[in-house]
């Protein structure tokens, strides 16, 4: 692919929060990335929604400079009173109006789910691991019980 095609492809990708780095350390997951396809002014927050249940979203401040954002997800908040064996939380970036899915859409790597793999952390009996979905979006997987 030449550079021109590359630019065109980037323009075609719809607005989202492009992830550059994921740091699962010290009971948190720190995210660094860029806001793609939408002006970055305003106040942005990271939003966590439990898949299949929208009743209790969690949100945390994100620092935005230019189009670069950075923020942390404290994993202790994911401990719910009624955990299923596996819970999945999807990550968005929001300014109150737009909801941008976090993911990695702009690079050349196919099959990130198996290639960009992150370590698991344990928080109060919950095992939490960030992962890329088959659509290259970033989510958190929480498991109860012993090591698989």
């Amino acid at each position, binding site marked *: 692919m030449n550079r021109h095609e590359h630019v065109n492809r980037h323009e075609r990708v719809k607005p989202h929060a492009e992830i*550059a780095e994921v740091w699962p350390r010290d009971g948190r997951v720190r995210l660094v990335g860029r806001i793609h396809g939408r002006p970055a002014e305003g106040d942005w927050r990271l939003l966590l929604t439990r898949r299949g249940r929208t009743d209790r979203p969690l949100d945390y401040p994100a620092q935005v400079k230019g189009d670069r954002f950075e923020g942390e997800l404290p994993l202790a908040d994911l401990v719910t009173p009624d955990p299923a064996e596996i819970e999945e939380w999807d990550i968005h970036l929001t300014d109150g109006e737009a909801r941008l899915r976090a993911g990695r859409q702009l690079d050349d790597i196919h*099959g990130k789910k198996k290639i*960009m793999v992150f370590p698991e952390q344990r928080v109060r009996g919950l095992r939490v691991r960030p992962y890329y979905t088959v659509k290259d979006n970033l989510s958190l997987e929480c498991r109860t019980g012993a090591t698989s």
Partner: protein
Amino acid sequence: MTDHQQTGQGADATGHRADATGRPKVRYLLLHAYGRGGTIRTVMNQANSLVQAGWQVELVSALRRRDDLQFPLDPRVRVSTVVDLRESAHSPGRGVAGRWRDRRRGRLTERPARHIPPGEFGYRYFNRYVEQRLIAYLSSLRDGILVTTRPALNFLAAEHATGGVVRVAQEHMNHGTHKRDVQRRIRETYARFDAVAVLTERDREEYGQLLPGTRVVRIPNAVHSLDQVPSDQRSRIAVAAGRLFPQKGFDLLIPAWARLVDAYPDWQLRIYGSGEKKAELRALIEEHHLYNHVLLMGHTDRLDDELAKAAFYVLSSRFEGLPMVMIEAMSHSLPVVAFDCPTGPSDVLTHGVDGLLVPPEDPDALAESMAKLMGDRALRADMGVAAVLTAASYGPDAVHPRWEALFSELASPEQRHRIADAAKGHHA
């Protein structure tokens, strides 16, 4: 049912005639032609070139575990198998004789090989049954040229392919890497070959000393093509490739990369390949918090495309025969950082010209040399140009005529006379 089956067109497997051009038939004996290793790939490249040049070529697979070949092979190359291990290949014997043969096969399968030293890395694939079938096959060969491709097969050919066939032993690994028992068998048996072919200058010298009076030739393996998309060395991607197991030294490369992350946070190391050490390497990546920078890419069928996107190639092996993927990377105009391990890197690379040679198994030195390339795009570009020139001497057009010349010479009437005499017990 006989175990020795053929596919493709042509005469019988032991086809005794030279073709109309007067050239002898060339047979390559591989442990597993249906596998995915470097030797298999290389031999198929050789076979493709020979058959295109008008030679009659057959690949003989000692074992068969898969239905399909894993690399492209010219349909004119015949493929046959000595022992088919696929489930579908075995039908229970009928009648008393059939059941007796099955029982005998079962008994022999459980017995260890007698002619293969345990230090041969392929020892586990051999047993008495496989050995007996191979000996029967090798003893049946009367003419043409037989090329055997690893020590175990070389040992069997040296002792049993004595019916008049011209014999060439290929060594795809460097001599120092072989275990003591294998080295001893090499000294005892390789003098019986008409030629021993090695990959590097250092091996030619070592085998020459071990086997005085035996013809030892150096013919490097060829890359599959020189017609490759060049990298512009602008990306921030380093590529390494190989099976994920200790020989390849990725456990040294990962800590080396850890020393560079702070200075070069936007660079990525992509390691292509699959293998039994994947979990350990993943743990090492996590231990060094490199999950954003070092990626285990798995196996790819499109390594050429991935090399074209890289900025340099890194070889962290503890040992090699001749590292072909490194040379392929060079054909994409990639400079190389390589441990100066035995053997290959120092045969191919000129330090400071087309790459950087690093003291073996030293992660600090490896990191230092990688940093040199990461910090200097002009240096990468210069070395990339030199790398293409170096790779040119490993192209199919440069290498394969050397096999043709060797085979033609070995099959010349004077040579054949000498071989016939030797087979009758005379000394040439």
